[in-house]
């Protein structure tokens, strides 16, 4: 078995892995090795040939592959070593990686720090439990996307999409352009789960109907899909008897969510967040296993690649600091999702970092709301907040806490109120309309 000694090994070369590797190298790490099981760098971006990447970070509207190219170049320029067609089979607590590829066989990498950036996989039929027959023609939207965009083949001609996730919306448009008829997009929730701009551009502009509060209750066809039965659901998301109708189709695409690809993380044995399905991480993006970092969709599902890249930079910096033995020590404070927030990441913040730099918190709203304050609360006091005109579960909310808002004194146990563990609670609260000032801030 070939052995590779390195400062930082990165698993997965999507936008997260690429940016993390490049940043680690730029921040002074020695040898940085980036591995991916696919034949190209760029991860899921390679099959996203639509526009809409990089608006925030690169101030341009790029396609997925173009966005990837930018960061592939950065990684190359920084001197990151890449290994493609290389599957990582195992990651250990002692920071060893076992990987395999065709040319070198099994490879063992010994690293000072490992960054996990394996992305996510799509939830499939078994995960959402759709009764009915089991014919060919049921695809996850991402698998269909790979067929169309990378292999040049169509999954079918008459299509129903279940789930209003972004991949499904984008595929609905793509397949329409390819000459297929997309009969309907069904969403079980009363609100869409994809970005608004995708609803507009991919469905409305194409004349594809979106049925909210609807789901598929039966699949027909012995060999190939011949149709589906759909029904309206009640507020507990249960199909309402009597509301069923049939749609003829030859294909059912599922866009029912992504699941962080955490098999390797589980092997390592670190703590996982039950809501995100990803590892619990610090503001350095370090998992609960020392020296093992994580970023991107493997931690929580991102809708904007720009945020993935930002998070990856943090991980890269953290890993480089660890390799150089310059990690922040000292006290940490735990974050917690409060009212109106489904989850928040990172989960642990170093007080040193809160004093010295911007600390970015990513969160998802539990429900759509208008005119709200996004607040960070420590010891019962709002330490920082910002106004949002609309929040939706589909769109990540970012709260960047400037340096000095949480000082070691404020976060000490007596101020924290409940228990001995100091925590920072984030919540989304309706803003009092009378006193609201557009874009204003509550101090």
């Amino acid at each position, binding site marked *: 078995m070939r052995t590779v000694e390195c400062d930082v090994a990165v698993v997965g070369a999507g936008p997260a892995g690429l940016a993390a590797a490049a940043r680690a190298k730029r921040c002074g790490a020695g040898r940085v090795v980036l591995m991916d*099981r696919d034949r190209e760098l760029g991860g899921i971006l390679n099959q996203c*040939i*639509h526009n*809409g990447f990089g*608006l925030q970070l690169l101030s341009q*509207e790029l396609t997925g592959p173009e966005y990837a190219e930018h960061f592939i170049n950065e990684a190359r320029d920084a001197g990151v070593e890449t290994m493609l067609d290389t599957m990582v*089979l195992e990651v250990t607590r002692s920071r060893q990686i076992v990987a*395999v590829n*065709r*040319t070198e*066989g*099994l490879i063992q990498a010994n690293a000072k720090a490992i960054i996990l950036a394996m992305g996510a*996989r*799509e939830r*499939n*039929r*078994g*995960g959402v*439990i759709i*009764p009915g*027959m*089991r*014919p*060919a*023609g049921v695809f*996850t939207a991402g*698998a269909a996307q790979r*067929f169309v*965009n*990378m*292999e*040049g*083949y*169509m*999954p*079918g001609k008459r299509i129903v999409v279940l789930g209003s996730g972004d991949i499904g919306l984008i595929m609905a448009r*793509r397949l329409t*352009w*390819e000459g297929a008829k997309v009969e309907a997009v069904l969403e079980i929730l*009363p609100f*869409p789960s994809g970005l*608004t*701009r995708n*609803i*507009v*551009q991919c469905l*409305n*502009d194409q004349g594809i109907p979106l049925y*909210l509060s609807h789901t598929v209750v039966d*699949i027909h066809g*012995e*060999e*190939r899909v011949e149709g589906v039965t759909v029904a309206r659901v009640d*507020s507990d998301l249960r*199909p309402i008897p009597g509301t069923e109708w049939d749609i003829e189709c030859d294909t059912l695409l599922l866009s029912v969510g992504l699941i962080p690809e955490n098999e390797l993380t589980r092997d390592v044995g670190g703590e996982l967040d039950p809501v995100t399905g990803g590892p619990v991480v610090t503001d350095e993006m370090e998992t609960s296993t020392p020296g093992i970092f994580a970023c991107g969709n493997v931690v929580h599902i991102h809708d*904007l690649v720009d945020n993935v890249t930002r998070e990856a930079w943090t991980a890269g910096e953290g890993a480089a600091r660890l390799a150089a033995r310059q990690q922040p020590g000292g006290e940490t404070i735990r974050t917690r999702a409060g009212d109106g927030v489904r989850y928040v990441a990172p989960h642990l913040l170093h007080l040193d970092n809160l004093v010295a730099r911007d600390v970015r918190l990513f969160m998802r709203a539990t*429900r*759509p709301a*208008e005119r709200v304050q996004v607040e960070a609360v420590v010891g019962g006091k709002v330490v920082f907040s910002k106004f949002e005109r609309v929040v939706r579960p589909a*769109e990540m909310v970012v709260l960047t806490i400037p340096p000095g808002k949480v000082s070691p004194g404020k976060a000490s146990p007596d101020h924290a109120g409940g228990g001995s563990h100091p925590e920072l609670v984030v919540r989304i609260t309706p803003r009092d309309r009378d006193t609201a000032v557009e874009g204003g801030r509550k101090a």
Partner: protein
Amino acid sequence: MQARRLAADVVIIGAGVVGTGVARELARYDVRVVLVEKRADVAFGTTKANTALVHAGYDAEPGTWKARLNVRGNSLYPKVCAELGVAYKNTGSLVVAFSEAQVLHLQELKAKGRINGVPGLEVIPRERVLTIEPDVNPDVVAALWAPSGGITSPWELAIAFAENAVANGVELLLSSPVIGMDVRGGRVSSVRCPGVVIDTGFVVNAAGIWADDIERMVGRDDFEITPRRGEYYLFDKRVGHLVSRPLFPVPSRSTKGIVVAPTVDGNLIAGPNALLVGDKGDLATTAAGLAEVIEGARRLVPGLPARESITNFAGLRAVAVPAGDFVIGASPGVPNFINAAGIQSPGLTAAPAIAEAVRDILADAGLELAEKPDFNPVRERPTRFAELCRDEQSALIEKNPLWGHIICRCENVTEAEVVEALHRAVPCTTLDGVKFRTRAGAGRCQGGFCGPRVVDIIHRELGVAPEQVTKKGGRSYILSGPSKDSLLEQTACRCLAHAIRDDGQADTEDVGTEDACRIEMREREGVGGHAHGGV
């Protein structure tokens, strides 16, 4: 078109575990055997959708075929699976009782088992059950321990039977539905499939739930097969540790009840329920059926997490009416037409013994059986990358780099295994065929990752156009055809490029007012709807 004409001593109809088992048994002898199967592969019938248990044999009525062949089949499993390289684990099994009344029932089962010749049955107390199965429902009172119970892989067994049969001279015709038979002077003389006529001395009817239709082709109508559907949950390997051996509830009159069992691959299976269905094609799962399965499974293992489910499926039991038992023997009035029909549970367990019984019936009916000196009972287990240690893996990759290319990310299946599966004694041409042979697509992502890659390998290795590759033969195509030139996409993309503000909001000027209104309306509906329910 002139039909191809073949000659055989025995034609076996149906390549499930029963038909392939008979074929492999007859391959020991100097007889010409043709095995015909209407589907694209072996094991695509009931054999691919059952609980995969090697039953001990305590619940069949003493004196029935079921009782006799279950116990005999069970005792043949270790040897058969060792010879054929098939996964089999002698885990033992437990029937779990939750009341004193049920404990009495355990005693009855034990007594029945003793008559049937089941070894080692024992009623064990609560504490022992909880020691060996800590996740079982703590309300357990006692359990029947059957040390000869076990688990296997039904399709591995049928594929191995078929491969070993073919290696020993049996001819296998796939995608060949039997559409008629010629009967002369009270005996079957030939079997007809589209494009092929097989003149034969004997016919074995192993057509599963279609066995009554096959018997009607020789003018007999001795039994009717009423399909009884059973639905399943299959769980992720992550929860595979929850049970170490099959757990049964105390059985009802008609079924063994909803079982929770480990699989030989490390997953967990729960099911089946039991529902008579009118249609032999009705393999649909239903919301009500799946709910029944989960409920039944949770009675045995309360901690079973539904969210770890990776797939659901259903299988059809071939219940013969009026017999209720297996229907094994020459059809009355057609002495060279041998039924192996009504093979419901424990048919998988009994299969090796059914093969012996059918052999003996054929011999009694006049088939001459001279042992072949060169019969080779061994079929090597195909190498699986995931089953090897790192050194063995390294050695393989050195010989053939395709062993270093992982195709299925969930089960760590390599390209070498997929290629090998496509070129074995029994041809495999479909995605499901590859899945049953290699486990590519059988893991938690259910082929989402490897699907496109396997299509590509089938295309390359077998010279089949991608749009002709199927999931399971027939019209089960995966792809409808090539996509349009991607140039179109690029132009359209440019036309639609919208300015999007920094906060991710669509700029409505570009979208057009009508569309903007539509989206606004839908969103309001959405927000409003939820507000009523929750806020």
